[in-house]
């Protein structure tokens, strides 16, 4: 494997293409990123009752996330401590215990080994069951309903890890009643490297008008001018790069812009307007503006969402050249049933498996990975230098902020953090502010 300082150059602006193909680099990602970072597991609304569980993955590790009798949430590696078989084969459900299908070892919802067949006749009661509980995920925590976990007991707590991003996300996570996710998640397979959709969702506003020209044109609305890049809406928003590698692009006032029908946009806008005064009272106008805007975001490393369009995704890596995509719909718990239904229908129509915008992206993502099959092709670098001289800190808002929405501030922030983590840097270095000095700042 090449040294990390030859993989990511110029403060994140160049990425060596072997990063999207090479097995050794992928193993390093599993060890240094997916075994250390906080990874999205589930939302509390999906496992409300004691015994409710989801299975998911952290990197390539299979994991069970289960609500305890005391209401807390714990997570365990989904693999029997005897011979390693998968313990739970379902995506979701409710149970008091998991019984391995191989020899029948059974585990309580707290992960303890509670049953071993033939314990007396075969083990002569010599097995110490307390030593063979399911391996527990070192840290599991919920931030306003969003449940994350990390294998790294020394990782900073979740609030610290969410960094600058938390200040922005509070504007919509911290609404009366909170948010919830509508499942079960759509799941699909894409033959691309996991970083490509993560950088795209979080930091690629540039592709939107061109990749999605057709979809944006037929849906109409305030972003229609973007279709085919006929309008250049530099003033509509900006990008933010947060500590710990989180990123998002923000469109001012545009939360409802990508709803596919005018009456849906109106219904959603009315809802946002009815809630905005409360958010302004709670957070002040500067922070509350993020409640009514559209976000394209990525929580480092692999959890992406579009707030406003309300698609919520995790890109689960399956080797360096494939991913499994999980897709939920994000809604506010107190939204009327009709609005929730509209939200999940519009998510299906835009960014679901059969989504009009999703299918545009899928083709590009796969080819961005698969072209690297060519030995000579993958010797080069990809470029993400857009707007590098036009970003910097802001006097009133945290993180690195770009002058324009059309910028690659997010991509650079993502790859700077990627390089720090793959390099094995300690947590203080990983979480350090990630910015070059301010050159020019637009008043935002």
């Amino acid at each position: 494997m090449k040294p990390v300082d030859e993989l990511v150059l110029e403060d994140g602006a160049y990425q060596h293409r072997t990063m999207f193909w090479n097995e050794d680099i992928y193993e390093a990602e599993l060890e240094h990123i997916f075994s250390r970072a906080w990874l999205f597991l589930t939302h509390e609304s999906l496992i409300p009752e004691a015994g409710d569980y989801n299975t998911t993955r952290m990197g390539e590790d299979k994991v069970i996330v289960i609500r305890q009798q005391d209401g807390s949430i714990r997570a365990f590696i989904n693999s029997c401590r005897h011979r390693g078989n998968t313990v739970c084969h379902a995506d979701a459900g409710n149970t008091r215990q998991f019984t391995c299908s191989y020899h029948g070892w059974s585990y309580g919802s707290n992960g303890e080994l509670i049953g071993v067949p033939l314990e007396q006749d075969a083990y002569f009661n010599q097995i110490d069951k307390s030593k063979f509980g399911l391996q527990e995920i070192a840290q599991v925590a919920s931030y306003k309903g969003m449940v994350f976990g990390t294998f790294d007991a020394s990782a900073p707590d979740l609030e610290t890890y969410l960094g600058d991003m938390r200040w922005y996300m509070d504007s919509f996570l911290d609404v009366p009643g909170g948010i919830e996710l509508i499942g079960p998640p759509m799941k699909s397979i894409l033959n691309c490297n996991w970083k490509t959709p993560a950088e795209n969702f979080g930091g690629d506003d540039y592709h939107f008008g061109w990749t999605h020209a057709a979809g944006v044109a037929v849906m109409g609305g305030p972003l229609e001018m973007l279709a085919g890049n006929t309008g250049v809406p530099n003033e509509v928003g900006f990008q933010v790069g947060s500590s710990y590698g989180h990123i998002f692009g923000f469109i001012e006032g545009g939360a409802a812009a990508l709803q596919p029908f005018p009456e849906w946009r109106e219904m959603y806008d009315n809802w946002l307007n009815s809630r905005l005064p409360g958010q302004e009272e709670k957070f002040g106008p500067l922070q509350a503006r993020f409640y009514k805007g559209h976000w394209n975001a990525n929580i480092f490393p692999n959890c992406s969402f579009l707030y406003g369009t309300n698609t919520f995704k995790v890109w689960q890596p399956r080797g360096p050249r494939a991913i499994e995509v999980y897709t939920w719909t994000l809604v506010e718990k107190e939204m009327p049933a009709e609005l929730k239904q509209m939200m999940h229908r519009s998510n299906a129509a835009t960014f679901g498996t059969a989504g009009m915008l999703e299918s545009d992206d899928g083709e590009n993502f796969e080819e961005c990975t698969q072209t690297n099959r060519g030995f000579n092709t993958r010797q080069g670098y990809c470029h993400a230098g857009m707007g590098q001289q036009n970003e910097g800190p802001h006097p009133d808002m945290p993180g690195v902020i770009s002058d324009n929405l059309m910028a690659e501030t997010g991509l650079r922030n993502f790859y700077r953090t990627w390089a720090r983590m793959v390099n094995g840097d300690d947590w203080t270095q990983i979480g350090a502010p990630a910015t070059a000095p301010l050159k020019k700042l637009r008043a935002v």
Partner: protein
Amino acid sequence: MGATAQKITKKPNPAKPSLELINDVQQFLYREARLQDAQAYRDWLTMLTDDIHYWMPTREQRYRSNPMEPDITHAAHYNDNYADLETRIRRTETGTCWSEDPATRSAHVVTNIEVELTDSPNEYRVYSLIAVYRNMNEDEEHTLYGHREDILRNVNGELKLARRKIIIDQNIFLSKSLNVYL
């Protein structure tokens, strides 16, 4: 918003459908498949009622002791009415739909067709199995199987599709974006 698809457990009308009706239904489904293969989507739209509900729910792998029936308030690959379907089709007509150019090649195969009468004299419940072979780009191949439960309605002497529920035999959708209709 959106109509509820009929439950599969609904008792059929015990009267037998006529051979003529069965033949008409089969011809309807074959024509639909041919139009899909030809990507003659505007012609396909004329085969749908204005109140069509076209639904393909997400599946989840669960234990038998924890069953969960698909519900229209849950996630779905398709959960479309006429306007949704028309919007999708309009997108492919813009000339800027890069992901459909070059075009996807597909073969829709319809089989296991069963026709039942319902309590409504103008509506028939039709079960069928659809297999879609999809070939994309240079060498990508995907095969999708869907169990369909339709309501066909006789509108002024012409059959139209009023409801379709598609249960796909995949828990994880095993390929990228779903760009065909089943």
